[in-house]
C-alpha cells in the first residue's frame, strides 16, 4: 500500500530544468530562513490566535493570509515542474506579489474582481472566503490546459470563477481597466433603474494590474473615464490595485514613476499605497481604500509595492537583463519570508508550524497536480469553438416574441419612413420593452446622434437609459462590457467605423472573448451600432466613409449585421437585443450612413422608405433577403424560371445592384435576382448557394475593399459549393484597396450602378451592349 514517488518536486535534489533554477533558489531561501527563525524561537512569545496583530487583523487572520500566500507560491512552483515535464503550459506566476491576498481579505467575495495575471494569492484568498471552493485543483487544471478546468475549459490559464465573482480575462495589456470602470458605473445604473443585477447594491469593483501596464493607453483611458465620471458627479465604485514590482518584462520603471502617475488624479481618484511585502500594512491600506470606495462610491487606486520573483515567466532569461546581485537582492525581499518572519516574531506561529504548513501545502499541490495532468484536454477544433458564441435561433425567436408581448407597440402608423426614423422607433420600442437596455455614445442624448438616429429618445425614455458618454471609444466599449456584466443590455453607438479602430481591442480581446474563456458562465451582452461605410454625400474622407468590414468580421464569435433598409434594420436590432438578453451575444450592427439619407431607388420615387415591421417580426441571424426576378424593384412581371444572374451584395450595394439589375433587364432583357446578405458574420451561406443554384451566373458586389472585403468569403463559399461538373460563372465588383478620399474622387474607389452593370455584362458575355 505504497504509492510510487513520481517526478521530482521543486525541492528535490535531482538535476533541474532551467525553468526550475530560480524556483528552487527561492524555495531553499525560505526554508533556510525558517531554520534561522527556529533558532531564535522562544515559545513564551506565543500568543492567542485571536489577539490583534495590527492592520485590523488577528493572528488567525494573518496566518490565513499566509496560507493563501503559500498556496499561491507552490502553485507557481508546480507550474514550472509541469512545464519542465511538458505537462503544463503556463508559467507566468504570482511569486513576489502574494501581498495582494491582503486586498482580497479587505473585500467581500461579492465584490467583482477583474484580476491581473499575478493576482494568484488574491484569487486563493477569495476562494477561502466562499464555502465549497476547490481552487487548488482548479488552478492546476488551468495550467494543464485541461478540458476539466472549470472556468476556461482548457482554453487559457485565467483567474476566473462565477462563484467568486471573478470574470476571467487575459489582462496582459491593461485592456480590462475600461470595463472595470464600466462595471462600476453599471452596478450603479442597474440599481438606479431597479433592474436585477448579479451584484449587490453596495458592491465595489476591484481591478488589479501591473505597474508596466499602467503605461498602456487603455489604462490611461480608464483612469480618465473614471475621473471624468466623478467630475460629473456619477458614482464610480472602483478600486484599482496597482501591483508595482518596478519592472515590465526587462524594462524597469523610472524611480517614483508609478506613484507620481497614479497620485496625480487625487482630486477624483483617491490614492493609497502600502508595502505588499507586509501583510499587515497592505491590509490596513486596503481596508482604508475599500472603505473609501464603498462609502463614497468614488474611485480609488491602491499601489502595492511588490517584487517580481522567478522572472517574468518560466522561459524568461532574467539573468540577461538583470545583474545576479539585483536578482538575489530581490529574492531576499520575498513576501513569504517577510510574512514568516512577522508571524514567528509576533508569536502567532512557531517556525516549525510554518514549515509544516509550507510543506503540507507543497504535498497537496503535488498530489493535485498528479490528478490534473491526467485529465483530458480539448480534443478538436469543435471542442475549442463550442463556447465562442453560445446561441440558438429558437431561444432568440422566443425572446423576440416574449418582448413583443411584454409591451404594446405604440401607434399603428405603417407609412413608409426613411431608415433613421425606423431605427429610432425600434430603439424606442426596445428601450420600453427592456428597462435594462441602455443607449449611449457620443452625442446620442441631447443632440440625438450625428444623424438624428437617436433623436428625442432621451426625452421620451429618460436620461437613465439614454445618455451621452465622453468622447473616447475605448471607454464607450468598456462601459458597454461592464454594463453587460452588471446585468444590463448596452446598445452603444460608435459614431463612425473609423473611430472603432483605436478601441477595437475592447471588442476583440475583451467583449468577444468572455464567453469563450468562461465557457459561457460569464457574459457581457451588447449590441454596438456603428455608422459606417462609404457613399456619403455630405461628409467626405476616409474617417467618415470607412468600409473596413474585415475589422469586425475577423473577430471570433462576434455577430455582424448590416441592414440596407429600415425595416431590416429594425428586425436585425430586435434579433440582436434578444440574442444579447437570452444568449449573452455580443454583436455589431453596421449602419450604412449613406442610406440614412436615401429615400429613393430611382430619383424621386420614394421607394427606399419602408414601413415599421409588425411586432415580433425579426431577421434571424444568418438569414438573407432575396429579391426574386419578379420583384417590383426589378421591374415586376412573372418570375424567370431560372435567373440569368444573381447579384450577391449588402449595404449600399443592394440598392445599387437593384438599379443595375433593372438596367440589365431593360437593356438586354436579362432577368436577375439580388441577394441582400443582411448578415456579414455569420454569412447566410445556404442562401448564397441557393441563389447561385437558381441562376446562370453570380456577381458579388462588395463596397468593402478587394482585399479582406466580404466578397472574399462569398467567393470562397461559391467555390466550395459549386457543382464539380458544372462550375458556376462568378465575378466580383469591389471597392479598391485604399482609404476613401475626400470629394468626388471617392467614386473611383467604390462600386457604382454602372460598374456593376458593366461587370454583369462582361460576365454574361454581353460585350458592347449586344446579345451574346
Amino acid at each position: 500500500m505504497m504509492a510510487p514517488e513520481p517526478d521530482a518536486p521543486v525541492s528535490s535534489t535531482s538535476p533541474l530544468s532551467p525553468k526550475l533554477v530560480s524556483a528552487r533558489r527561492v524555495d531553499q531561501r525560505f526554508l533556510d530562513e525558517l531554520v534561522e527563525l527556529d533558532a531564535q524561537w522562544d515559545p513564551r512569545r506565543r500568543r492567542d490566535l485571536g489577539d490583534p496583530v495590527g492592520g485590523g487583523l488577528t493572528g488567525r487572520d494573518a496566518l490565513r493570509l499566509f496560507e493563501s500566500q503559500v498556496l499561491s507560491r507552490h502553485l507557481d512552483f508546480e507550474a514550472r515542474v509541469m512545464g519542465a515535464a511538458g505537462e503544463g503550459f503556463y508559467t507566468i506566476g504570482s511569486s513576489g506579489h502574494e501581498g495582494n491576498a491582503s486586498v482580497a481579505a479587505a473585500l467581500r467575495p461579492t465584490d467583482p474582481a477583474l484580476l491581473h495575471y499575478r493576482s494568484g494569492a488574491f484569487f486563493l484568498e477569495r476562494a477561502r472566503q466562499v464555502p465549497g471552493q476547490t481552487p487548488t485543483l482548479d488552478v492546476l487544471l488551468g495550467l494543464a490546459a485541461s478540458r476539466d478546468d472549470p472556468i476556461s475549459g482548457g482554453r487559457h490559464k485565467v483567474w476566473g470563477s462565477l462563484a467568486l465573482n471573478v470574470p476571467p480575462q487575459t489582462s496582459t495589456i491593461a485592456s480590462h481597466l475600461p470595463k472595470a470602470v464600466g462595471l462600476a458605473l453599471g452596478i450603479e445604473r442597474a440599481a438606479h433603474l431597479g433592474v436585477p443585477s448579479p451584484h449587490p447594491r453596495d458592491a465595489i469593483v476591484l481591478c488589479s494590474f501591473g505597474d508596466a501596464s499602467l503605461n498602456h493607453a487603455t489604462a490611461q483611458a480608464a483612469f480618465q473615464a473614471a475621473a471624468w465620471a466623478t467630475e460629473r458627479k456619477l458614482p464610480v465604485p472602483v478600486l484599482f490595485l496597482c501591483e508595482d514590482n518596478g519592472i515590465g518584462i526587462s524594462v524597469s520603471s523610472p524611480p517614483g514613476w508609478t506613484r507620481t502617475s497614479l497620485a496625480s488624479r487625487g482630486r477624483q481618484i483617491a490614492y493609497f499605497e502600502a508595502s505588499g511585502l507586509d501583510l499587515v500594512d497592505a491590509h490596513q491600506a486596503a481596508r482604508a481604500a475599500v472603505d473609501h470606495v464603498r462609502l463614497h462610491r468614488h474611485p480609488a487606486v491602491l499601489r502595492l509595492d511588490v517584487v517580481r520573483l522567478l522572472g517574468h515567466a518560466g522561459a524568461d532569461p532574467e539573468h540577461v537583463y538583470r545583474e545576479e546581485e539585483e536578482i538575489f537582492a530581490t529574492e531576499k525581499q520575498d513576501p513569504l519570508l517577510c510574512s514568516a518572519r512577522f508571524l514567528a516574531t509576533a508569536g502567532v506561529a512557531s517556525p516549525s508550524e510554518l514549515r509544516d504548513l509550507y510543506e503540507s501545502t507543497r504535498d497537496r499541490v503535488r498530489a493535485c497536480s498528479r490528478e490534473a495532468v491526467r485529465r483530458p484536454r480539448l480534443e478538436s477544433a469543435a471542442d475549442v469553438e463550442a463556447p465562442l458564441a453560445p446561441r440558438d435561433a429558437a431561444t432568440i425567436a422566443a425572446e423576440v416574441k416574449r418582448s413583443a408581448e411584454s409591451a404594446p407597440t405604440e401607434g399603428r402608423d405603417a407609412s413608409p419612413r426613411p431608415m433613421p426614423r425606423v431605427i429610432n422607433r425600434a430603439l424606442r420600442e426596445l428601450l420600453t420593452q427592456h428597462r435594462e437596455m441602455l443607449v449611449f455614445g457620443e452625442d446620442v442624448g441631447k443632440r440625438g446622434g450625428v444623424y438624428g438616429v437617436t433623436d428625442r429618445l432621451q426625452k421620451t425614455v429618460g436620461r437613465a437609459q439614454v445618455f451621452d458618454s465622453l468622447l473616447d471609444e475605448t471607454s464607450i466599449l468598456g462601459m458597454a462590457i461592464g454594463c453587460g456584466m452588471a446585468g444590463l443590455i448596452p446598445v452603444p453607438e460608435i459614431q463612425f467605423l473609423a473611430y472603432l479602430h483605436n478601441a477595437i481591442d475592447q471588442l476583440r480581446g475583451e467583449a468577444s472573448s468572455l464567453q469563450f474563456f468562461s465557457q459561457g458562465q460569464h457574459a457581457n451582452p451588447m449590441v454596438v451600432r456603428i455608422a459606417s461605410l462609404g457613399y456619403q454625400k455630405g461628409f467626405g474622407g476616409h474617417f467618415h466613409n470607412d468600409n473596413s468590414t474585415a475589422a469586425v468580421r475577423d473577430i471570433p464569435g462576434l455577430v455582424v449585421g448590416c441592414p440596407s433598409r429600415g425595416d431590416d434594420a429594425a428586425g436585425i436590432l430586435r434579433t440582436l437585443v434578444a440574442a444579447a438578453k437570452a444568449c449573452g451575444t455580443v454583436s455589431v450592427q453596421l449602419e450604412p450612413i449613406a442610406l440614412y439619407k436615401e429615400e429613393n431607388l430611382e430619383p424621386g420615387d420614394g421607394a427606399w422608405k419602408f414601413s415599421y415591421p409588425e411586432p415580433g417580426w425579426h431577421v434571424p441571424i444568418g438569414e438573407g433577403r432575396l429579391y426574386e426576378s419578379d420583384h417590383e424593384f426589378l421591374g415586376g412581371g412573372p418570375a424567370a424560371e431560372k435567373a440569368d444572374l444573381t447579384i450577391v451584395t449588402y449595404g449600399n450595394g443592394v440598392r445599387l445592384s437593384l438599379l443595375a439589375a433593372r438596367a440589365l433587364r431593360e437593356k438586354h432583357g436579362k432577368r436577375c435576382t439580388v441577394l441582400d446578405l443582411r448578415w456579414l458574420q455569420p454569412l447566410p451561406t445556404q442562401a448564397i448557394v441557393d441563389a447561385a443554384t437558381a441562376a446562370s451566373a453570380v456577381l458579388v458586389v462588395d463596397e468593402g475593399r478587394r482585399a479582406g472585403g466580404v466578397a472574399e468569403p462569398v467567393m470562397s463559399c461559391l467555390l466550395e459549393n459549386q457543382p464539380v461538373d458544372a462550375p458556376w460563372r462568378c465575378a466580383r465588383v469591389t471597392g479598391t484597396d485604399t482609404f476613401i478620399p475626400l470629394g468626388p474622387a471617392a467614386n473611383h474607389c467604390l462600386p457604382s450602378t454602372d460598374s456593376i452593370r458593366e461587370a454583369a455584362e462582361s460576365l454574361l458575355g454581353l460585350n458592347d451592349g449586344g446579345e451574346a
Partner: protein
Amino acid sequence: MSSRPLRAALVCPGRGSYLSPELGSLGRAREEGVTEVRTSLDAVVRELDTCRAKRGQPSVMTLDSAERFSPREHLRADHASALILAGSAADLGLVKAAAQAGLIEPVVACGNSLGWYTALHVSGALDAPNAARLVDTMASIQVERGEEGGQLVYPIADDDSWEVDATRSQAVEEGLAAARAAGGQAHVSIWLGGNVVLAGDEPALKVFTETLPPVERKGRTFPLRLAGHSAFHTPLMTEMSGIAQGRLGDLGWRAPEMPLIDGRGVTWSPFHADPAALRQYTLETQVLETYDFTTSVRVALREHAPDLLILLGPGDSLGGPVGQLLVAERWSGIASRADFLERQGSDDPIVASLGRAADRSRLLGLLEAGAKA
C-alpha cells in the same frame, strides 16, 4: 523509484451504518489483535458508558454483543449513535496503526451528518471523552424530545451508471416546491452523492411520498422514510440546537490535527481553526442547515488529492455514495460504475471500506506483514 505512504482521506459514516450485519463488530474488532484499535475503541466506550450509566442504560459493548439485532433497540437514536461512534473509533485505531506502520498518511477528514461528530474526533478536534459526550448528548436530546419531523431518502443517480439523473433531480425540486406550496416545511437535509435526504414536517413528508416518482431498488421502494430520524439539518431543529448549546457549553474544543472539511465544504485548518467557531458550527449551523456531504468529499478530493479514501465503519453505508462521487468527479480516471468496480478489484483500490470484510482483512494483512518484516 522511492515510495511514500498513501495520502488517505478519512470518511466517517452517519446514522444507519450499524445494522444487523454489524452486530458484534465491536467485539470482533477488539479481538483483531491491534493495540491501537482497542485503545481507541475503549477510550470512547468508557465515556459513552459513563453517560449511559447515568441514565441506567446498558453499556455499548452489551448492545454490541446482544444475541440478535433488534431494530427497536439498536436503531434508537442514543444507542445507534453510541455504536456508530464506537465502531468508527475502533477503525480510527486501525488507521493510526497503518499510519504508524508508514502505509498511509491521513491528510484530511470528513463525515456524513452524525459522521461529522466522528470526524471531529478522528481529526483531533475533540478528544475521545469530548466526542463521546457530544454524540451522547445530541442523541439523548433527540430521544427526550421524540421525533421532530422526519427524513426520507431518495436516489437521484441512475442505479446502473451512477450518473445523476436530471429527471429525478427535477422531481426533487418539484417535490420541494409542492411541499412548500402545501404549507409544509420542506428542506434538503443531506446531499449524499447519488442520493438526497429530504426532511420536513409531516405535511411535507406526505407530499414528498405522494409526488416523488417511486424508485425500486434492492426490493425497497424509494422515497424511503428513515425510521426514528428527526428532520436534522433543517430549521425544524432550532430548539434542539439551543438545548445542545446549553448542555455542551463546556465541551473542550481545539483545532484539528489535520484538515477537516465540514458539511458546507469549508476546511478547518490545523494551523488556524478557531475552536469557538468550530463549536458554533457544530452545535448550531450544521444542525439547522443542509449537510452537503457531496461537496465535502469533492473538496477533500480536489484540495487534497488522496490516493485512498478510507471509509470508517461500522458498515459500508458510504461505499455507494462515495463511488458515485468519484464517478461524478471523474476522479483518477473513474468515469462509470464499471470503472469504479474494476479499480476496486485491482491491486490499487481507491476506496478502502473498513466495514467490508475483504478491505479490512487486506489492511490487517498489510499491518501483519509490516510487523513481521
